[in-house]
C-alpha cells in the first residue's frame, strides 16, 4: 500500500476517532486507520489534530495506531459492471466480500468495486479519429453492459484536449487504457474506469424544466400525484404503512432506464427480497429482467452507521454517472430518516451543539444538497438525462411535524403522505389523498393530454373534488349516521367508496393489477366518472340509491383492475356500454 502515514489515533469513541500528529491531511480526505486499514474520512482539522469518521466497526482500534492518508477524497469507481451489482455504503462489492470473509462482513476487508478480471467488448465511436478535440462528457465508445443497458464510455468531466489515440473494437478490462488525450497539462491515459468523489455533484451543461412524468404504473401516483422525471418526492409514513412496498413497486415498474436502490439503515431481509425477486421479474416495456437495470446499495441497519451516512451520496453519484450517459435514472432512498439519524449520531459523537431533537444545525443544508442533485439535465455529452429522487422518510411515531419530515418537505416538490388508518384497513398503497400533493401537476399535464387523453386534467380535478366533498360528508355521517343524508349526498360516499376500492387500491402481488398503463388508468377513471355523472343525474330523476347500488355491472367495475389488462381497450368499451345500458334501463323505469 502506497498510503503515507499522516498521523496517529488519539481517541476512539465509536465510529468517530480523533487523531493527532497530523502533518498534511486534506479536508474530506480518504484515510485508512490502524493495521486493519479501516476506511475513514477526515471531517475536521484543527492544528495537528483531526476528527475522522470511520466507515467500519472500530472494535479493537487503539490510541497510537497509525492513520494512513490516500491523498484523495472518498470516491467511487465508475465504469461497466455497475449494473446488477450490490454494494455497501462505500461501494464495497458485497458479493466479492462474501467470497473473502464468508457470511459476515469483517472489518478491514476490501475488494475492487469493479471486477478487473472481466473484459468488456468496447466499440469505439466510428466518428472519433485521432486529432479530434474532445472534452469532458464526450462519448468515446460503447459497451453492452446488460442486454438492456448500453454503457457509454465518457471522457471524464475534468479532461479536455486532443485525442491522440483510441483503441479499436475489442475486449478490454476496465482498467486497460482505451484512449490517450493530450491536454494542456500533459497527456492523459483514459481507461473505461473513472472515479468521482461522492460528495461533489457531477457537472452538467444546464438544467432543463421538467415536463415528462415518471410513469410508475401506480394509479394513485400517476393519476393523482404525478412525479416528473428529474423531480423529487418524499414518502413519509410510520412503520408498517408501506414505504418500502411503495418504493419496491416504483423500482419495479417505473419507466426509468436505470434504478439505483439505496437500502439505507433498513432491514437486511428487504435487500435479500430485492436480490431474489428482481432477477425473476420481467420489465413490461422491454421484456428483460429488472435486475438488468438495477444497482443496489445495501447498508442495513446493523452495518456501520457512518457508511450509512455516505450511502445516499454513493447512490446519487452512481445515478449521475448514468444520467451523464443520457439515461433517465430513478434513485430510491429508503430511508432518508436513517441517514439523518446517522448524521445525528456522528454529530453527537463529535460533541457538536445540537439543534432540534438532537439533530445537527446543518441537517436542512444536507437534505437540500442531496435533493438538489436531482434534475433533468442537458449533460456534457449533449444528451438529455435525468435523476429523480424518491426518498422515504420514517418519522418517529408517524408524526409528520418532526424535523426530518419538515425539512424534507421544504426541498421536495411532491409529497406522498402515507396514512396509518389506510394501512390498518390494508388499503395499499396507503397514500393519503388529503395530505399528498404534487407541484409537478402543471408541468406534466401537456404530456398526459398528448399521450393519454385531453380529458385527463379535468377528470383528475373532478375526482379530487369529490374526495374532498366526501371528507365533509363523512364528518356529518360520524355524527348522525349515513341514513340521515339524502340519496344525492349518499351517492357521493358511494362513488368515493367505489373509487377507493376499484382505483386507488392496487394489489402489488397481483399479476395484472401491479402495473397499470396510463391508458388503463385514464379509462378506469373515466368509467367511474361516468357512473358518478350519470348516477347523480339519475338520482335527480327519482332513481333510488338502492337501485343504483344493485346494478350487476358494479361488481365488474370493482374487479376491472384485475380482469382487464393494459391492452384491453375493447373490454373497457364493452364495460362502459354495459354501465350506460344499465343506467338507461333504470332511468326508463323511473321516467
Amino acid at each position: 500500500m502506497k498510503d503515507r502515514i499522516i498521523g496517529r489515533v488519539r481517541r476512539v469513541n465509536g465510529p468517530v476517532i480523533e487523531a493527532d500528529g497530523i502533518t498534511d491531511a486534506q479536508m474530506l480526505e480518504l484515510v485508512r486507520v490502524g493495521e486493519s486499514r479501516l476506511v475513514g474520512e477526515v471531517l475536521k482539522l484543527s492544528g495537528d489534530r483531526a476528527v475522522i469518521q470511520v466507515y467500519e466497526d472500530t472494535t479493537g482500534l487503539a490510541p497510537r495506531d497509525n492513520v494512513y492518508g490516500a491523498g484523495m477524497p472518498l470516491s467511487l469507481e465508475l465504469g461497466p459492471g455497475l449494473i446488477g451489482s450490490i454494494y455497501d455504503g462505500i461501494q464495497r462489492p458485497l458479493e466479492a466480500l462474501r467470497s473473502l470473509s464468508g457470511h459476515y462482513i469483517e472489518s478491514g476487508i476490501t475488494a475492487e468495486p469493479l471486477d478487473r478480471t472481466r473484459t468488456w467488448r468496447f466499440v469505439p465511436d466510428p466518428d472519433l479519429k485521432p486529432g479530434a478535440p474532445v472534452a469532458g462528457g464526450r462519448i468515446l465508445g460503447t459497451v453492452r453492459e446488460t442486454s438492456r443497458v448500453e454503457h457509454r464510455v465518457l471522457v471524464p468531466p475534468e479532461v479536455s484536449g486532443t485525442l491522440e489515440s483510441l483503441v479499436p473494437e475489442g475486449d478490454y478490462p476496465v482498467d486497460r487504457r482505451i484512449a490517450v488525450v493530450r491536454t494542456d497539462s500533459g497527456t492523459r491515459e483514459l481507461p473505461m474506469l473513472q472515479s468521482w468523489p461522492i460528495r461533489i455533484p457531477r457537472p452538467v451543461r444546464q438544467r432543463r424544466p421538467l415536463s415528462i412524468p415518471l410513469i410508475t404504473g401506480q394509479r394513485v401516483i400517476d393519476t393523482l400525484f404525478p412525479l416528473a422525471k428529474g423531480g423529487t418526492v418524499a414518502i413519509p409514513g410510520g412503520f408498517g404503512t408501506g414505504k418500502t412496498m411503495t418504493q419496491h413497486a416504483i423500482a419495479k415498474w417505473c419507466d426509468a432506464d436505470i434504478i439505483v436502490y439505496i437500502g439505507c439503515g433498513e432491514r437486511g431481509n428487504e435487500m435479500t427480497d430485492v436480490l431474489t425477486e428482481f432477477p425473476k421479474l420481467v420489465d413490461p416495456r422491454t421484456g428483460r429482467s429488472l435486475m438488468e437495470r438495477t444497482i443496489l446499495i445495501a447498508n442495513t441497519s446493523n452495518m456501520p452507521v457512518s457508511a450509512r451516512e455516505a450511502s445516499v451520496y454513493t447512490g446519487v453519484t452512481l445515478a449521475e454517472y448514468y444520467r451523464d450517459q443520457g439515461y433517465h435514472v430513478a434513485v430510491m432512498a429508503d430511508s432518508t430518516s436513517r441517514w439523518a439519524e446517522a448524521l445525528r449520531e456522528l454529530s453527537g459523537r463529535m460533541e457538536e451543539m445540537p439543534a432540534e431533537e438532537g439533530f445537527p444545525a446543518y441537517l436542512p443544508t444536507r437534505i437540500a444538497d442531496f435533493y438538489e442533485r436531482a434534475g433533468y439535465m442537458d449533460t456534457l455529452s449533449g444528451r438529455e438525462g435525468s435523476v429523480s429522487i424518491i426518498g422515504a422518510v420514517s418519522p418517529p411515531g408517524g408524526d409528520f411535524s418532526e424535523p426530518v419530515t419538515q425539512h424534507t418537505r421544504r426541498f421536495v416538490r411532491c409529497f406522498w403522505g402515507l396514512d396509518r388508518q389506510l394501512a390498518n384497513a390494508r388499503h395499499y398503497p396507503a397514500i393519503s389523498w388529503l395530505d399528498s400533493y404534487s407541484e409537478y401537476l402543471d408541468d406534466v399535464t401537456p404530456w398526459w393530454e398528448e399521450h393519454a387523453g385531453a380529458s385527463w386534467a379535468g377528470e383528475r380535478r373532478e375526482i379530487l373534488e369529490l374526495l374532498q366533498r366526501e371528507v365533509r360528508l363523512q364528518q356529518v355521517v360520524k355524527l348522525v349516521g349515513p341514513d340521515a343524508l339524502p340519496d344525492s349526498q349518499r351517492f357521493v360516499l358511494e362513488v368515493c367508496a367505489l373509487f377507493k376500492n376499484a382505483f386507488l387500491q392496487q394489489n402489488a402481488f397481483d399479476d395484472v393489477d401491479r402495473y397499470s398503463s396510463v391508458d388503463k388508468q385514464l379509462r378506469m377513471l373515466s368509467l367511474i366518472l361516468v357512473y358518478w355523472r350519470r348516477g347523480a343525474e339519475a338520482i335527480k330523476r327519482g332513481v333510488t340509491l338502492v337501485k343504483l347500488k344493485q346494478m350487476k355491472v358494479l361488481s365488474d367495475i370493482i374487479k376491472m383492475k384485475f380482469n382487464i389488462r393494459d391492452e384491453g381497450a375493447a373490454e373497457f368499451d364493452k364495460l362502459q356500454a354495459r354501465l350506460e345500458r344499465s343506467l338507461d334501463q333504470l332511468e326508463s323505469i323511473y321516467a
Partner: protein
Amino acid sequence: MPEQETRNEARRRLMSGREYVGADRIDGPLLVLRKTHPVGYRELAECVDREGHTRLGMVLDTSDDAVVIQVFEGTQGLTLPGTKVRFRGRPLTLGVTEKMLGRVFDGLGRPIDGGPAPLAQEEVDVNGRPINPTSREYPRDFIQTGISAIDGMNTLIRGQKLPIFSGNGLPHNELAAQIARQAKIRGGSNDFAVVFAAMGVKHDVARYFTRSFEETGVLENVALFLSLADDPSIERIITPRTALTLAEHLAYRKGLHVLVILTDMSNYCESLREISTIRGEIPSRKGYPGYLYSDLAEIYERSGMIRGTPGSITQLPILTMPSDDISHPIPDLTGYITEGQIVFEREMSGRGIYPPVAGLPSLSRLMKDGIGEGMTREDHPHLASQLFAAYSYVKDVRNLASVIGEEELTPLDHQYLEFGEFFERKFVSQGKDEDRPIERTLELGWEALKLLPSEELHRVTDEEIETYYLGEG
C-alpha cells in the same frame, strides 16, 4: 488483513496481561482509568475488587489520556485505590457449544444452575458481525403456532423477527410460552431449540417460563440467560448479545431452528439510556440516546436464515409499551426494524379475549411470501385481506354506534357488528393450550365471513366464494 504485527500491536499484546492498580473515577457503572497503555475500543476488561472477585467490563471510550470501562456487574463496592484492572486485548467473547442447551446462565453466559461451565467449542465475539445481505436467504417457511390471530392474520415465518408489543399486566408471557410450545413447521424438519433471554424481569416470570418448558418436556432444548430485576441493570446491555451469540452458533453451525425469546426489551433500552446519561451524551427523544435505533438493530438483525446453512433464528422480542403508547421511542424504533409486530390491546384483554391481539395495528411483513398455495392454502391471502377489511369497517361501525346508538344502524351495519363479535370471540379468542391447525383457523375465518352478504366481499375471488362461502368449506 495485516500479515505482520506492527510494533504497536505487539506492544498491546504484551501489555494485555499488565495489571493496573487503582482507578481514577467511578461514576455509576463506569470506571475511568488514566495513564494506561493504548487500549483497544470495545476491549474486554477484568476488574478485580478487594475481595478478589473479578467483574467483567468493556471499553467504551479510549484515548491517550483515559480509558472508560463499562462494568457489567456494576461498580457497587469498588474502591478507587483497591480496584485492579487488566485489559485482555480482545473483545468480550462467549464460549459456545450445543451442550449449553438445558442449562441456565447469567447475563454474561456464566452458569448459575450449579453445574460446571460447559466445554466450549469456539469462542465468539458477543457483539456479532453484520450478516452480508447477499448471504441471507429470504425467509418463507410458514411456522404454525396454533394461534389463529397469528397464523391466520399475522403469520410467523421461520427466520422472522416479530415482536410482541404489550403492556404491563397483559398476557405476553403466556403467549410467548404458548408459541414456544406449539410452534412447528408442517412436514418439515423440526430440529429446534429455544434461547431465552430475560432482561430485568421478575423472578416469577423467569420461573413461569422455566415451568412451562419443563411441563412440556422441552427443557433440554432450551438455554436460559437470566439477568433478573435484582441483577445490576448494566448487565442487561450484554444479555441479549450473549443469548444471540449462542443462537447463532446453534443455527448456523449446528443447523438447528432456534426461537429466541427476548423479554423485556423495554428494560434493555432503559439500561442503555442510563449509560448514555451518565456519559453525558446528547439525548434525542425522551432521553434515549440518538443511537438507540442502531443499537436495537444490532440485536434484531441477528436473525434470519443464511444461504447454504440449514438452521434459522426466529426472534420473538417482547416489550411492554410505557403507558400503552405505541409511539413511544422503544416500540416505535422496534417497529421500524422488525418485520411486523403483534400488538396487544388492553380493552380486548379486559373483555376476556385471549390472546388480546389487536386486529388492525398488528402486522407480519413476511406473511405475503409464506402463505397461499403449497404453503398454507390457496385462499389464505385473500381471506386474510378480506377479514382485515371487514374488521376495519367493524371499528367504524362501532364508533358510529357509540354516537347514534345501535338501533339507528342499518341492517348491513348490524351484520358487521355480528361479524366483529364472532371474529373476536371465536376466531381470535382461544384457549391457552389450544393448538389450532391452520385449516381450522381458515375455516373459522370463512365462518365469520358467512355472517356478511357475499356482495360485501370484494377481496376474495368468485371461485373462493363458490368453494368456501357457499360450499361446504
